[in-house]
């Protein structure tokens, strides 16, 4: 039990359990549901990064889909190169995904430099512009990005060791959810580290953080970079799950859906990012099914497909803000009767016994008024 008190060990155990659940779950689902899970993994990766940026560091982003696009296109370009040169192997796709995450991290750091100078609506405006403008760049450089059609994302089939009947969709779900587990593991440890405390300090009180010796812009740029790496990985696995990287896959709707996911799940909570992603992904699927069942004309059905999920996310967002300001995770904590503060308080050691001789002559102040 003493070993489990170590944050790293506890998170490693959770990572192993998550991986086991992933293997069991994907084995029991149809190929179609595995395909949906692959999409969910991409949402979880990005929403987890976004909740760190917005919930823990207080910087809003309305353009995270653009960061996903950078990751997605980087992976697509690399995978095409590898495929053209007939380079194969189990390491190829992870290398592309890592490169996608790294390139997005660099791009996010550049955005972070600008973001560190901006606050509130100005920051929202800049990230919104990024979300609109960046996917549009693909139409400007069609020779590289193939315009609206986008790039295909070739990748090796599942390893032969998994069996001849191992479905590609299940393999995609493994890749995507595996990436999500790694992102959650990394961010959970980061949140509990000094860096996580710095993120929260800057969010809560920039002046106090500065006076403690923190460089506020540096912390904010770091938060953007970390969030960008997660979004880049999310974009990479999204492209792999769709087997394409196109501007339509990374549009503004996706950015807003991601923001909805982190608020609905509970801003600042990694578990909340998972709940929110599940809601957003599966609500979208349910609504699409609902529209298909209405028997509308193709044009009308397409319009509803495009707009109904956004309207539903918006409505859900308003409801959550009114009824559950802490999101789903906040509700679960309330139901469990465990406030995060109570968990922190448990097991804390009693005050130090030793007194500092030179200060002990001073009468200690009593507590103030409550």
């Amino acid at each position, binding site marked *: 039990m003493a070993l489990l008190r170590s944050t790293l060990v506890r998170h490693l155990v959770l990572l192993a359990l998550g991986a086991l659940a992933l293997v069991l779950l994907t084995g029991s689902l149809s190929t179609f549901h595995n395909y949906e899970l692959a999409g969910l993994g991409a949402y979880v990766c990005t929403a987890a990064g976004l909740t760190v940026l917005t919930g823990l560091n207080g910087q809003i982003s309305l353009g995270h889909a653009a960061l996903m696009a950078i990751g997605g296109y980087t992976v697509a370009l690399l995978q095409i190169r590898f495929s053209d040169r007939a380079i194969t192997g189990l390491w190829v796709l992870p290398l592309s995904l890592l490169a996608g995450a790294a390139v997005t991290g660099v791009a996010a750091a550049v955005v972070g430099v600008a973001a560190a100078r901006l606050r509130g609506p100005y920051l929202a405006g800049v990230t919104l512009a990024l979300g609109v403008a960046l996917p549009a760049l693909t139409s400007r450089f069609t020779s590289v990005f193939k315009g609206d059609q986008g790039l295909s994302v070739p990748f090796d089939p599942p390893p032969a060791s998994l069996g001849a009947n191992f479905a590609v969709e299940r393999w995609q779900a493994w890749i995507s959810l595996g990436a999500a587990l790694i992102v959650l593991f990394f961010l959970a440890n980061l949140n509990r580290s*000094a860096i996580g*405390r*710095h993120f*929260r*300090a800057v*969010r*809560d*009180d920039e*002046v*106090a*953080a*500065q*006076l*403690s*010796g*923190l*460089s506020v812009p540096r912390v904010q740029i770091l938060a953007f970079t970390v969030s960008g790496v997660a979004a880049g990985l999310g974009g990479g696995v999204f492209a792999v799950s769709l087997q394409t990287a196109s501007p339509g896959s990374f549009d503004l709707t996706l950015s807003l859906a991601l923001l909805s996911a982190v608020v609905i799940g509970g801003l600042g909570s990694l578990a909340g990012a998972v709940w929110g992603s599940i809601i957003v992904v599966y609500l979208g699927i349910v609504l699409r099914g609902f529209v298909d069942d209405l028997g509308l004309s193709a044009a009308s059905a397409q319009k509803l497909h495009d707009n109904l999920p956004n309207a539903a996310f918006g409505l859900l967002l308003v409801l959550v803000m009114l009824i559950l300001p802490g999101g789903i995770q906040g509700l679960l904590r309330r139901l469990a009767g465990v406030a995060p*503060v109570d968990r*922190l*308080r*448990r097991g*804390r050691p009693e*005050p*130090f016994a*030793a*007194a*500092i001789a*030179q*200060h*002990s*002559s*001073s*009468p*200690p*102040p*009593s*507590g*103030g*008024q*409550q």
Partner: protein
Amino acid sequence: MTELLEVEGLCAGYGAAPVLHDVDLRLAPGTITAVLGANGAGKTTLLRTLSGLLRPSAGRIDLTGRDLIGLPVERRVMLGVAHVPEGRGVIGELTVQENLRLGGLWRKGAGARRETDAAIAEVYDLFEPLARRRGYHGHQLSGGERQMLALGRALVARPKFLLLDEPSLGLAPVVAASIMALLRTLRDASGMAVLLVEQNVHSALAIADEGVVVSLGRVVARGKAADLQADEGLRHAYLGF
């Protein structure tokens, strides 16, 4: 005595509105200097300029011979400047222990953690209520405890120069008196220079060695705390008693 802090011709303000005009200040180590004056006199602006939160338009700030002008806040913290702002600046979502640990952020390299742990242990000995609530979040503390925490975080940095803005604001008299008394103990034990902004003139002058009176952004009087308190004309004109 060699001065710890020397300020000459300091001018600062907010945008086009100048607040401080040609302020000179000298602080010796191991002294408490009270900054007195009416609301809007520029006391808080002076502290913000010295700690680096506000960029001066002119003047010189030397801390032990090192020019602070142009240095960001975090560099000044590393050089030994600690500022406890008005409103206290406690991070509500961090625990008492985590807030205190922030005070040791400037330390780098081997032994930094050990040194910060030792400084935190000292703070817990000074402020026993904080030791009992080390796992509580900042927003769960009372006003007095928050003031202790803000002061404690500054002390974890083991500063040479402590700037305190209204430490008794909103506190019960007994808590305010305890904190004021503690400042004297800290001054004697650590040898740091304290610049104290305090609305309660009596209690500020009671613990201070020196005092400066600020009016409309200018230093209009300075001297021994006892002399300022005894100067009836000054008290009537600037201190309101």
